[in-house]
């Protein structure tokens, strides 16, 4: 947890190579400085780390399982496919790891109010959960488009006592939810912590969120060794902002033989212009506080992303991914809506596990990687979330329930 001794950075200004930093209003710099200081102290304070570990174990249900999926793997060229089951965490995704860490920090800072953005609602639900647990006021900003396609998660957040504010500006998705949360933060920064849900944004968010999720990769590496006696050939994870991917990748960064593969939302195809494949098709720029790859036009205006998956529908990406891409340490590919939905159905039917559409992008990538690696290959997939929230989308896509049947 102590990034001061972390060879993988970032530097003290929050840079991973040329990416990261703080492209933020001066009004928020004091809060970012305070957060950095409190986080750095907490990360070496046994009282904090002990409480965090206890919550991960007794509340979130860690360690999460590693599940081998042989019937699914028959479609992956016979390679072995192993799933890191973040979907089995409390609240149904990896998001709970980061949220518990930041909620504890919120209490340390003496703040009583938490704001968050959410796309699919997974981070919003996790944040509402941690706030309920710790007695914090919670406001979640969610694009209006997403409140409609993820209505179940809106209901969950409200049941947990959070206020959910639909955002009607811009593309009315995750990007605009972040804009609105930043506007709230700059107005209420004295009382409020912005509990950012991905490993993006201004320093210290990328390193802090990554470190709260590093447990995924640390557990998975040992579990794969225990099960197979060796390291995997490839690790696949979906990338929107990139928090689950950076969390699992970090367990393997120092294993040069392990390929790290991020799967971006290809939407209707990268060539169609309707996608969210930031690292595949973007260029470096600043959005939401950090320099990183970005979908932007030649004037530097953000291009709206598109994905069937609300959680990946974001035109930016965490700065560490940009650095790993440029270094060549990680590779990034895109998966279309149709490929992701096919993988979702395949895992459901072959293994009895219904994955989130976000995670289904990683599964589609694993099918491809398995076919490239052949029968000797081992692919580890971060199954970052469960698919219950996606039943409306799956129903429209597959026509699961006939009209008048329900």
């Amino acid at each position, binding site marked *: 947890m102590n990034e001061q001794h972390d060879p993988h950075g970032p530097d003290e200004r929050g840079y991973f190579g040329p990416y990261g930093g703080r492209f933020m209003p001066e009004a928020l710099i004091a809060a970012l400085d305070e957060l950095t200081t409190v986080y750095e102290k907490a990360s070496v304070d046994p009282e904090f780390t002990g409480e965090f570990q206890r919550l991960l174990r007794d509340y979130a249900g860690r360690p999460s399982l590693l599940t081998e999926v042989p019937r699914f793997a028959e479609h992956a060229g016979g390679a072995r496919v192993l799933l890191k089951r973040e979907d089995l965490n409390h609240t149904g995704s990896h998001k709970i790891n980061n949220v518990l860490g930041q909620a504890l920090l919120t209490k340390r800072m003496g703040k009583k109010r938490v704001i968050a953005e959410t796309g699919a609602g997974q981070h919003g639900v996790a944040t509402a959960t941690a706030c309920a647990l710790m007695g914090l006021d919670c406001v979640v900003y969610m694009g209006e488009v997403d409140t409609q396609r993820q209505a179940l998660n809106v209901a969950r957040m409200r049941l947990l006592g959070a206020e959910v504010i639909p955002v009607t500006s811009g593309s009315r998705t995750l990007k605009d939810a972040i804009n609105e949360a930043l506007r709230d933060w700059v107005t209420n920064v*004295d009382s409020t912590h912005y509990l950012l849900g991905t490993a993006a944004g201004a320093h210290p968010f990328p390193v802090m969120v990554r470190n709260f999720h590093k447990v995924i990769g640390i557990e998975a590496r040992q579990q794969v060794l225990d099960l197979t006696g060796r390291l995997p050939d490839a690790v696949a994870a979906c990338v929107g902002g990139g928090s689950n991917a950076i969390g699992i990748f970090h367990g393997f960064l120092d294993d040069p033989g392990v390929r790290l593969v991020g799967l971006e939302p290809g939407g209707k195809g990268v060539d169609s212009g309707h996608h969210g494949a930031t690292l595949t098709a973007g260029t470096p*720029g600043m959005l939401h506080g950090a320099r990183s790859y970005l979908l932007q036009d030649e004037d530097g205006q953000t291009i709206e992303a598109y994905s069937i998956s609300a959680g990946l529908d974001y035109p930016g990406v965490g700065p560490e991914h940009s650095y790993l891409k440029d270094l060549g340490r990680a590779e990034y590919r895109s998966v279309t809506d149709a490929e992701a939905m096919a993988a979702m159905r395949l895992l459901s039917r072959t293994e009895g596990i219904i994955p989130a559409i976000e995670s289904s992008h990683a599964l589609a990538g694993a099918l491809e990687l398995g076919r490239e690696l052949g029968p000797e290959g081992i692919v580890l997939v971060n199954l970052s979330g469960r698919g219950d929230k996606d039943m409306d989308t799956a129903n429209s896509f597959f026509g699961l329930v006939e009209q008048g049947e329900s």
Partner: protein
Amino acid sequence: MSLAELFTATREQGRAALVGYLPAGYPTAAGSKSMLRAMVDGGCDLVEVGVPYSDPVMDGPTIQAAATQALEAGFRLRDVFEVVESISSAGGRAVVMTYWNPVNRYGVDAYARDLAAAGGLGIITPDLIPDEADEWLAASTEHGLDRIFLVAPSSTEERIARTAKASSGFLYATSVMGVTGARDVVSSAAPELVRRVRAHTDLPVGVGLGVRNGAQAAELAAFADAVIVGSAFVSKVAEGEQAVADLAAELAQGVRGAAAVA
């Protein structure tokens, strides 16, 4: 006339400068030129030409809507130089206020070069802090532009000192914690912030966020070197050039210490 000369003049006259903001391309490309001209004619000592941006996180609903309208009407980044040129060639003074990504994308040095060529005097950078501004520090020096950074009530003494040191022309003090938008009451944090800034620098201090009428302008002019008005001008655009000029005239009286009675 440079910003330094402007503030020397207003200080000699014992008054604050009036600074008005309007996004380029709002309501249209041509319309923004005539509206900005009306602001200058009405009494703005300096205009801030805003660059419409897709993700204006420091702006409230009024300026967000104006930026969206300008972008939907086809605003292109290079249009801002034409707008600046139309002001400077008519004897007005203009700086650009912009989020940083469009400048970064254009090329920081090229942007500075083209702005200087259009007669622009500097750039106000709401989401660029001096810590991240090495390229801009070099380009602004190279092309003779002023660098107007922001300070906020939450800024520490150390950060105010650092920001003042990196700035030229004037310092922009955000008088409240929050986004842009006209407010009924001018923040009580403003005088305290200006006092803190003056302990670190002799640079003129402009105060913005929330001013909408002559009385508020007069209140701020009592302790600030410049009164900055944005959303109120943007709102007036719908009523036409004369209304914009009238608002400028009312505010211009305000910064001279005489609150206009509407």
